[in-house]
C-alpha cells in the first residue's frame, strides 16, 4: 500500500532513490565474474615463498608503464627474497601494437628471456612505436605493425633467441590466447588502466600510488608477518 501523508511519501521516495542507487552499483559489480588463471613461470620472478607478492598489470606500449619499470626494479632489489613479481599483460584498446608486443615478449619468455625482452621493449618503445611527426597523422596500422615486428625480430636476435622459433611463435594463436587470458583476468579484477599493481591483493594504480602507498604497505606487511 502506498503512503498517504506527505512526510511518509517523502520518506518512501528517498528510500526508492537510495535503493535504486545501491541496486545499480551492486548489479554492475555482480556482473563481473572472478577469473584468475595462472601466469607462466617465465613471467614471475623472486622466491616462490616470498611474503610479498606483487602482481603487475602492464601494457608494453604504455609510457606510464615504462616509467614504472625503474621504481619496480628498485623495490624488488630493496626487498630481495621477501618480494615476488608476477607480470600480467593488459594491452589497452587504444594501443594497437600492445598485443603484438605482449605476444613477442611471451615468445621470448618461451625461450627463457621474457624479462630481457620486457626491458628492451620498454627501453625502445619509441623505436617499435614511433611517434608521428608533429602535426601529422600516425602511419597506417599495417605499416606500424610491420615496423614493430621488424624491431621485435631484431631484439630477438640481440637476445640470441632461436629466430625461426621466435618468428613462428609471433603468429601462434596460442601465444595470443595467453595474452587474452590476462586481459580477461584484468577485466574480472576491474583493472581499468595501466600500470596497476596488486601487492598482496591491495591495489595501487599508476606509479604515483605505487610510490606513495606501495612501500609503506609492504613495510606494514613485512612487520605483521615477522
Amino acid at each position, binding site marked *: 500500500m502506498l503512503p498517504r501523508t506527505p512526510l511518509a511519501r517523502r520518506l518512501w*521516495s528517498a528510500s526508492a*532513490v537510495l535503493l535504486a542507487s545501491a541496486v545499480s*552499483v551492486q548489479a*554492475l559489480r555482480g556482473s563481473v565474474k572472478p577469473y584468475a588463471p595462472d601466469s607462466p613461470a617465465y613471467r614471475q620472478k623472486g622466491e616462490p615463498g616470498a611474503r610479498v607478492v606483487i602482481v603487475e598489470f602492464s601494457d608494453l606500449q604504455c609510457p606510464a608503464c615504462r616509467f614504472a619499470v625503474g621504481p619496480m626494479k628498485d623495490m624488488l632489489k630493496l626487498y630481495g627474497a621477501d618480494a615476488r613479481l608476477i607480470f600480467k599483460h593488459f594491452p589497452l584498446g587504444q594501443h594497437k601494437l600492445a598485443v603484438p608486443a605482449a605476444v613477442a615478449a611471451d615468445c621470448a619468455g618461451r625461450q627463457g628471456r621474457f624479462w630481457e625482452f620486457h626491458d628492451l621493449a620498454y627501453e625502445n618503445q619509441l623505436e617499435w612505436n614511433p611517434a608521428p611527426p608533429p602535426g601529422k597523422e600516425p602511419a597506417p596500422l599495417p605499416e606500424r605493425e610491420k615496423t614493430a615486428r621488424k624491431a621485435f625480430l631484431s631484439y630477438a636476435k640481440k637476445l640470441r633467441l632461436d629466430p625461426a622459433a621466435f618468428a613462428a611463435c609471433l603468429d601462434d594463436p596460442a601465444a595470443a590466447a595467453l595474452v587474452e587470458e590476462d586481459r580477461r583476468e584484468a577485466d574480472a579484477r*576491474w583493472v581499468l588502466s595501466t600500470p596497476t599493481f596488486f601487492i598482496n591483493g591491495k591495489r595501487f594504480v*599508476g606509479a604515483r600510488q605505487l610510490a606513495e602507498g606501495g612501500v609503506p604497505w609492504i613495510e606494514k606487511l613485512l612487520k605483521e608477518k615477522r
Partner: protein
Amino acid sequence: MNGRPAADAWLGLAARVVLGLVFVAAGTLKAAAPAEEFALVIETYGLVTSRDLILVMAAFLPWLEVVFGYALVFGFLTRLSAAVIGGMSVSFAFALLFTILKGIRLPDCGCFGFGMQMTQHGELAMNGLWAACAVQAFRRGSARLSLDAWCGADGPTGRT
C-alpha cells in the same frame, strides 16, 4: 492551457530525465569499480594533491552522481538535485578548463569510468550541455511526472 508553459514543462521533464540517466550511468560505472581507479583520474587533473583526500573523493563523488542522478530521474527533490548535478557539471568544466590551460593531457576525463573517450574540448562542451539541462530541470523539472508532485513538495527543493 497556454501552449508555451506546457512545452516548457515537458522540456523540463526531458532535461531532468536525460541528465539524471547520464549521471546514473557515469556514477554507476565509477562507483562499481575500485576507488583507486577513479583516484588515478583525479590525480591526473593536478588540482588535489593529498592522496587521502583523493581517495575519499574517488569513493564519494560517484555515489553522489548516482544518488542525485536517480533523484532527477524520479523527480525527487528536483531543484536541489538539479542544483547539485549542475554544480558538479560546472566544477568538472572548470577542472577541464584548468587542464587545457595548463597543457595537462588527460588519458581520460574519467567521466564515464573509462567507458567513453573524448577530447578535452569535447568533454568541456558536454559538461556545458549538462549544465544547461540542469538549469532547465531546476526551472521546470518537477512540473510533470515527478515524485515531488506526488509528495506535494513546496519551496526551494520541491515544486517549481
